[in-house]
């Protein structure tokens, strides 16, 4: 609750201010549920905020997913340092709408730009990221037979922006490879008692700026399926993001999260707001 209030305050302060950092509007992406820079359900290779190699930038994000039987909310902050490193802290909260299941998870993220510039480079930008996640509420993960209640995902991310892409509109393509043992983002723990197997998972996002301040796009996130009898399916979304200024972005999406913890067809809406300094 304290974190949540602090995040709201940061977003308001950030959006009222005048973000004066040097990067071009919307090149920071928006705030995905796991924190840092990205889309709605996956991280992107870009770093959070608009900081150039001479600057630092702070951003705060809140998001709320509302699907058939669950809500998944997230709030967090990210610090971008000199267009090289991004650190982020987020808290996810997963709730079943009809029973007492209420799971909180902390996510500490770090991402470093290895090579390139998504906007100005001839080649794509490459980044390497870590997401260290720990469950505050471990009962569900334990009861499903998860091996661990904390774990670390590693991902390699690549992104390219074309100023005059298809239809002469600015376009973005991002792809990630993720090494992970997580069950449902780690909300249901990591691995299983019988297997410590890790997956390499593919994630992709594409976006088109139909207007300088409005992007539409889609994302796909391959998911593992570790726990017997508790099926996990790939996630996807279509989104529209609006950037009224460098200080503020608002994202709306339609989510398709498949089966989650034995409840099928989890589709619904996603809303996220981000303030940047």
């Amino acid at each position, binding site marked *: 609750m304290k974190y949540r209030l602090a995040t709201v305050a940061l977003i308001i302060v950030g959006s009222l201010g005048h973000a004066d950092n*040097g990067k071009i509007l919307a090149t920071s992406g928006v705030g995905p549920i796991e924190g840092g820079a990205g889309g709605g359900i996956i991280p992107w290779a870009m770093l959070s905020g608009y900081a150039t190699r*001479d600057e630092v930038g702070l951003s705060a994000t809140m998001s709320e997913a509302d699907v058939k039987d669950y809500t998944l909310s997230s709030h967090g902050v990210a610090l971008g340092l000199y267009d090289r490193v991004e650190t982020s802290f987020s808290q996810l909260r997963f709730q079943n709408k009809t029973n007492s299941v209420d799971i909180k998870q902390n996510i500490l993220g770090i991402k470093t730009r290895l090579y390139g510039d998504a906007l100005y480079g001839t080649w794509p930008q490459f980044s390497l990221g870590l997401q260290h996640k720990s469950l505050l509420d471990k009962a569900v993960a334990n009861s499903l037979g998860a091996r661990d209640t904390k774990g670390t995902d590693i991902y390699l991310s690549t992104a390219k922006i074309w100023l005059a892409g298809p239809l002469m509109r600015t376009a973005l393509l991002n792809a990630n490879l993720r090494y992970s043992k997580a069950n449902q983002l780690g909300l249901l723990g990591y691995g299983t008692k019988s297997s410590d197997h890790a997956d390499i998972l593919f994630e*992709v996002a*594409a976006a088109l700026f139909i207007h300088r301040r409005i992007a539409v796009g889609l994302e796909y996130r391959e998911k593992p399926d570790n726990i017997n009898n508790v099926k996990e*399916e790939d996630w996807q979304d279509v989104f529209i993001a609006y950037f009224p200024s460098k200080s503020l972005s608002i994202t709306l999406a339609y989510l398709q999260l498949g089966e989650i913890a034995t409840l099928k067809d989890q589709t619904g809406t996603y809303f996220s707001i981000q303030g940047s300094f």
Partner: protein
Amino acid sequence: MHGSFAQIKKLLIAYSIALLLIACTTIKPHQSLYDALGKQEGIARLTDAFIEEIQYDKRVLPYFLKSDIVRFREKFIEQLCTISGGPCRYTGDTMVDVHSGMDINEHHFNAIVEDLILAMENISLPTSTQNQLLSLLAPMRSDIIYR
């Protein structure tokens, strides 16, 4: 779904094809850009709108106060005409020579891009024309910053 290697390979191939498709649609002759900009007259109007934006931009104005703005106007028009496929030849100094020793960083460069976008918005150039021009100017970045 399990991330088997066969599947990753399939997805990587799909991603590469998408990259290629976008790259192909991006390569277009710039023949019509000069016309889309409104030829000589339109380019002059854009340049004036650009200079006006710079006048209000305290991030970059100091750099322009030190330069000959009449010459800048003339050479900028010439350059836009040349790169957009118009009947001109850029006769100014190279981008490296012009910007050497000016200590221009990424922040300044992006400020100028924003001013140019505002100028293009102000004279109501369509987004597609704006993007085509920006994509021709963007490669000059490395010749301009940290020189």
